[in-house]
């Protein structure tokens, strides 16, 4: 399942950290927007692998624009280690 992390505020892309193929965890900083004279991090909404980066430094983005697409990792089919219960339903 793929999920787009979107811009939560209008602004200009200041920095991009995420690259396709990167493994990211929910809450990781994927990049930085500048808005309201502040540096506002773009935080990963899901844990998984970066499938697509749709922002570049200097771009203007509007609220809701998709910035980074993360493909959720499929749950391991084997293994006995306890897994944390999923805490979220699909969007």
């Amino acid at each position, binding site marked *: 399942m793929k999920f787009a992390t979107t811009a*939560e505020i209008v602004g200009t892309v200041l920095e991009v950290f995420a690259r396709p193929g990167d493994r990211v965890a929910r809450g990781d900083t994927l990049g930085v927007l500048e*808005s309201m004279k*502040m540096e*506002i*991090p773009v935080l990963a909404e899901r844990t998984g692998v970066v499938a697509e980066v749709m922002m570049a430094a200097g771009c203007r983005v509007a609220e809701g624009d998709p910035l980074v697409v993360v493909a959720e990792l499929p749950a391991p089919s084997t293994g006995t280690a306890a897994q944390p219960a999923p805490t979220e339903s699909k969007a």
Partner: protein
Amino acid sequence: MTVQLPPTTRPRLDGARPEPDPRSPLPRLDRLFDPLSFEVTAAGGGIDVVVARGRVEGVPAVAFCTDGSRQGGALGLAEADRIVAAIDLAVREDCPVIGLWHCGGARLSDGIEALHGFARIFAATTAASGRIPQISVILGPAAGGAAYGPALTDIVVMAKGAKMFVTGPDVIRSVTGEEIDAEGLGGAEAHGRRSGVAHVIAGSDDDALAQARTLAALVGDRRRCDPALVAEAEADPRRLLPDNPRRVYPIHPVIRALLDEAGAATFIELQADWAPNLVVGLGRIGGATVGVVANNPLRRGGCLDSVSAEKASRFVRMCDGFGVPLLVLVDVPGYLPGVGQEWDGVVRRGAKLLYAFSEAVVPRVTLVLRKSYGGAYIAMNSHGLGATRVFAWPEAEVAVMGAESAVGILHRRALAAAPDHERAELRRRLTEDQRRSAGGVERGVALGLIDQIIDPRRTRAHLATALADAPARRGRHGNIPL
């Protein structure tokens, strides 16, 4: 007072001990109240609602529970009247009422009488609003009237798997053609993130009941703040802020550092994932309950906007109605500009926050952590709106806008006229002047808009003293679900 729990299901024919249906009211009420602390005040008689009175976290409370094991918990007039009686009982006893909901809506066989029953619940809930805390816990489906009943109360807690909607997926599909399942339509994600209907999303039924207990105990507690319980000086909470003023940070560690440590329940946040740029929730200072309203720079830079203003307004009015003092933590770059915001009613919704603070008579103390600009300065419980005390940490900026932006407007011509190689230096000098003359916290102090610049290490001591010194008052109004 304790009573023998009556069996909740008929004995099985084989004589084995009956297993109570987990969806029936008694096991649920039993898990809500303190052990052996409750008595059933109304049950049986062919009416599928049970009412009980007891203690939660030591605080007296009344609770009612619909019977999810019978007709999906659907309510007829008799069930509704029993819920109305429970609310009235809590009003007479001046204690919180907790409603446990598992209810598909109106009982069809009761026809329009069932609708009338829901109307009576709505009227009773509204009449009790602002007089006693009303908390709803959704433990299954809560459809139609069973969604509106909780929505009229002060706090809605949703357990995992709970669903709330006015019309279900089938009706939606037949009318609009939209395909969605019940969880997507009215589950935790829908009401925790999108609609703001749910104040707390709990992991399980037990977690939901535990959260309701904690919240009832917090809101229902009228203890006064005792500064003797707060240390004179503590670790500097300003260490939780970044050095660079352009950097953002999560506000939650700051909130927790300023509240009493109380195990896991230092701070209970409400509507955490909805409008997360503004944080509201309950905790304690000096042993007394306080409501916290705080900008959260990590999200949207901590801007105020249309939705967050409305979120804060309702919370402020709830706290005022129950005599819960307010702590307002300010680090706000301003109101978020934009066409979307204006058309979304930021004027109308932002006005609610101005109204809520202006109206509030509870002690309400403001602390400016880092910056407070423009209209957002006013809205975040400024002196002009009647704040009890306004504190600021050293080097905080209180201004119409940031010095850099102000210079860009005030000195636009001078900057444009300056030779290219001198422009940066001119801008730097003007910005410094601007900061000194209009931006720094000293000007706010000189004008009496900030009472005191405080040593961050003594923040809790200052807050506790301010809260304890203010007269304990309580607003006289309901808590309309803004």
